[in-house]
């Protein structure tokens, strides 16, 4: 048999690559095997329609840990993040709400809708900032098991308690925020409906929750977290699309000596005497390794890649009921011209910015909390939202290389698209779903249908088939209260370790969770290095 590696990693998503880079830098021999022809997983750019580059899945970065960027020297490997400025919420009455990077501009704009809201906005941001700081120590560390009485666990629990204690004044706010709904949270702060809805929408992204579901306020904080490390509201778009992130991680991994093989789908994890020994690829090739690390989700890892006899029944049951219902889809468009938003034409521009500048950030279709909640109601009963929530960016306005001159690409993140449809299959519903998205958006963008050159509709089913995301869940798990912190991915097995010796997890399902943040990959590598002395 060929060479044996210190570590072999399943999946070349950004977490698998980050883990590889950290292990490689510690002197380990590492191989990453990836099923697809390219690296990146859900952080990928593909040219599906000639000349137009789609960030097929994820489309913005903000959660990406600055620590990882500097430790792995990612800018040297080509990472360049271009800032996105502002969020535009078009309203059904023809008006809009614009929040700019520049807080005084935002204030002027909000005052147009409500003086009280303009006043509250800054305080609201400050509160979230403090709360995010209170949660961050937990996010950065390996989670302890509160049900264990082992001294190490108790010590870590006490440390976390102390961290919370330091911000005692925020303790109650935090406890409330952890358990309330994003709608209740923002309604206590603001009166402008479109503002309330757009803020509460960050509490539903990637979840099977509505803005009125308890627990969604925490998700809001989770998405806000990315903003506290770097520059205020420093979310951005990688040059070249999301592959820009993946390529930088791949470069860092290779520079650290790791090998990456694409088109090498794993069929099974080799386990002997309760210990992982390597991998078998689908073509039968065996790869030996001292440590096996899976970056794919726990269902895929333990239900498909691990033979059941290696796992006890209790663990298998926990994996079986691990919730991972996908709820989002994506529509990517190639456009012949710049979309024209009705609200920017009819309402007077109050700021010095030209209409086009309003489109260089995010565009949120979230006119009211009821609108979002109704979109969720559809999903509860197994239908895609007839009037969905959309989070849109036009990458070609930020990085012109994404489309031919004068033309554009549009990335539309759509919720809700439940993986489990009550009727029909996603294969025969795919275009109907695409139509619902376009029809809804055309109400705000009258020229939309005339300028579409090509559209790609990505359903949760497609995410599962093409990217291996079980049930099409975009962040590998549901950000639901019972699956937060301690109980991930299965109770008792939250520390990147698994019940099988030498088999580790490093993907989005592990602490601190989904998004393009690379923290799971980094922390898993640290855990492995510590375990192996």
């Amino acid at each position, binding site marked *: 048999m060929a060479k044996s590696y210190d570590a072999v990693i399943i999946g070349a998503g950004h977490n698998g690559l980050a883990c590889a880079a950290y292990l490689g830098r510690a002197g380990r021999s590492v191989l990453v095997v990836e099923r697809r022809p390219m690296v990146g997983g859900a952080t990928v750019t593909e040219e599906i329609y000639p000349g137009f580059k789609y960030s097929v899945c994820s489309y913005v970065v903000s959660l990406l840990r600055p620590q990882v960027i500097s430790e792995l020297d990612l800018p040297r490997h080509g990472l360049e993040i271009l800032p996105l400025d502002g969020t535009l919420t078009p309203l059904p009455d023809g008006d809009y709400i614009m929040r700019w990077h520049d807080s005084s501009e935002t204030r002027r704009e909000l005052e147009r809708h409500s003086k009280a809201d303009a006043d509250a906005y800054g305080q609201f941001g400050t509160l979230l900032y403090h709360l995010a700081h209170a949660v961050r120590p937990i996010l950065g560390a390996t989670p302890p098991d*509160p*049900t*264990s009485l082992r001294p190490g666990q108790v010590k870590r629990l006490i440390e976390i308690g102390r961290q919370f204690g330091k911000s*005692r004044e925020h*303790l*109650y*706010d935090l*406890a*409330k925020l*952890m*358990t*309330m709904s994003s709608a*209740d949270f923002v309604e*206590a702060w603001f009166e402008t409906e479109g503002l309330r809805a757009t803020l509460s929408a960050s509490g539903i992204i990637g979840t099977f*929750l509505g803005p*009125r*579901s*308890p*627990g969604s306020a925490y998700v809001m904080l989770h998405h806000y977290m990315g903003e506290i490390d770097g520059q205020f509201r420093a979310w951005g778009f990688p040059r070249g699309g999301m592959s820009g992130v993946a390529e930088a991680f791949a470069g860092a991994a290779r520079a650290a000596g790791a090998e990456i093989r694409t088109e090498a789908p794993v069929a099974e994890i080799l386990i002997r005497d309760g210990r992982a020994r390597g991998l078998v690829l689908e073509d039968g090739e065996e790869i030996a390794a001292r440590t096996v690390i899976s970056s794919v989700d726990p269902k895929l890892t333990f239900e498909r890649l691990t033979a059941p006899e290696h796992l006890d029944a209790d663990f298998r049951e926990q994996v079986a*009921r691990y*919730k991972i219902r996908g709820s989002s889809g994506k529509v990517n468009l190639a456009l012949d011209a710049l979309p024209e938003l009705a609200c920017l034409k009819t309402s007077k521009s109050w700021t010095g910015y030209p209409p086009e500048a309003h489109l260089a950030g995010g565009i949120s279709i979230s006119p009211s909390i*009821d609108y979002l*909640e*109704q979109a969720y*109601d559809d999903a*509860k*009963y197994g239908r895609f939202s007839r009037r969905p929530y959309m989070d849109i960016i036009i990458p070609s306005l930020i990085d012109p290389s994404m489309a031919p001159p004068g033309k554009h690409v549009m990335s539309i993140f759509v919720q809700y698209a439940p993986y489990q449809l009550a009727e029909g299959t996603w294969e025969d519903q795919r275009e109907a779903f695409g139509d619902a998205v376009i029809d809804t958006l055309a109400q705000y963008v009258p020229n939309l249908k005339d300028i579409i050159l090509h559209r790609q509709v990505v359903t949760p089913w497609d995410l599962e088939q093409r990217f291996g995301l079980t049930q099409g869940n975009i962040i590998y798990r549901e950000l*639901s*209260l*019972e699956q937060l912190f*301690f*109980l991930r991915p299965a*109770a*008792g097995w939250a520390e990147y370790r698994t019940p099988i010796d030498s088999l580790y997890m490093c993907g989005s399902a592990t602490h601190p969770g989904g998004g393009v943040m690379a923290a799971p990959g980094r922390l898993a590598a640290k855990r492995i290095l510590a375990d192996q002395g």
Partner: protein
Amino acid sequence: MTKTYDAVIVGAGHNGLVCAAYLARAGREVLVLERREIVGGCAATEEFAPGFRCPATFPSVETFDPEITRELQLESHGLRLLAQGGVLVPRFDGEALYLPPPNGTGARAEGIPDSDAEALNEFDVFLRRLAAAFHSILSKPLPDLKPSGLGDLLEILGTGWPLRKLGARDLRETMRFLPMPIADVLDERFETDALKAAIGAGGITGSWLGPRSPGSALNLLLHRLGGCRGAVGYPRLAAGGSGALTEALRKAAEAAGATVRTDVEVTDITVVKGRATGVALGSGEEIQAAVVISNADPRTTLLDLVEPIHLDPSVVLAIRGIRSRGSVAIVKLALDRAPRFSGAPEDPAGRIQIGAHLDELEQAFDDTKYGRLGERPYLDIQIPSIADPSLAPDGKHVLSAWVQFPPYDLRDRGWEGAKDDLAAIVEKRIEDHAPGFSESILAREVASPVDLEERYGMTGGCLYHVEPALDQFLYLRPMPRWAGYQMPIEGLYLCGSGTHGGGGLTGLAGRNAARRVLATK
């Protein structure tokens, strides 16, 4: 001339009476003041049509804490509990799921597969253990969160101890269970839709939550604490209705030396130099007391009865942040004869739950979210006159329907005209499952959430004072920083459903508050 009581209690709801009884038994001189002409608040038994009497809201009293019944010797004060009843869930196909009461007759649920019967046993055991653990946490005031010394720290650990005792596996299950939507819990364990609905209904009762809302599992647990009961909400009536319980409480309090006055409205809580010194009545009378304990909801107590100048603006903000959205209406019917539900055993002396699918319960909740009067609310029905004929004239019956979810805030229209519509909706829904029932109606009374607010003085018509929800539980109930009964004004306490231990007819909040007051002196 003026006499000073040790404690004056505003409101003679069941918690106010429990609190009074415990304080009086400890030798305190206690005065209870009730606005209405009868005691019991929303647990009183009221005549709503000549000869027809019915409990105001909760017909049965199985949630009331048996420990308190024992300690206050309520049976010697006239409380007589009747046999447990079963639970009937009529389905749309004309059949019904019937869960007979577990009274040793060996009868078991019919029409559910063996796997579900087994799952029911398992879930029952799990929930009982959980209820026992939480009962011991909810039946004590919470320790202060700022551990100032070793003693406090030990107390905090002690409070959590009942949970630790569950063992690692059950503790994990508990931590997973509490924040979950009850629908997810049940989907994991059961197949039969009507059985899931039968259990899941306990997760939405009295709340602003659907079965798919996180936290509805906690709400189910809270409804099972008294007597540490299991999965199914088998009802248990008191002879004379829930009012018989509150009458017994009044007698127990009086026997211990407390004074109970009805028909007196407290209009002000007097505060002197930041300290509550007594109350002022509508008549102009003033009463002095060392402590004032309010059985009214937190908002009414602090924003209506206390002059705003006595409160810090941040406290006012926190009070305003309390969610108390009423989502329950009560329909009482006087009937010529008992209804016959399709697929039911003879005389279902128990609870009839209309809503045979979790989706149906969820859709009922959707209506309240958008402020609509839904066509298919969830109904929790009891016909207490079957077990207790004294509630109605000979051969006749009273039916009480707890209707969940007509919203307090009925959008685009007021409640006035809507009450007839609600009655029609409820009656149609019963008629669907009990053909011919409508013809037996002799009289009706509809109480909308707005009526409940006016009649019983509870903000928003929220029967639990403070909505049961994860973020209004334990240290966050009724509001952050003030979960210890003692309110931001010295000498002012709360003892009602909106406090720790409260929510529903349990008596725990009243007893906890009494213990806190006694410990403070």
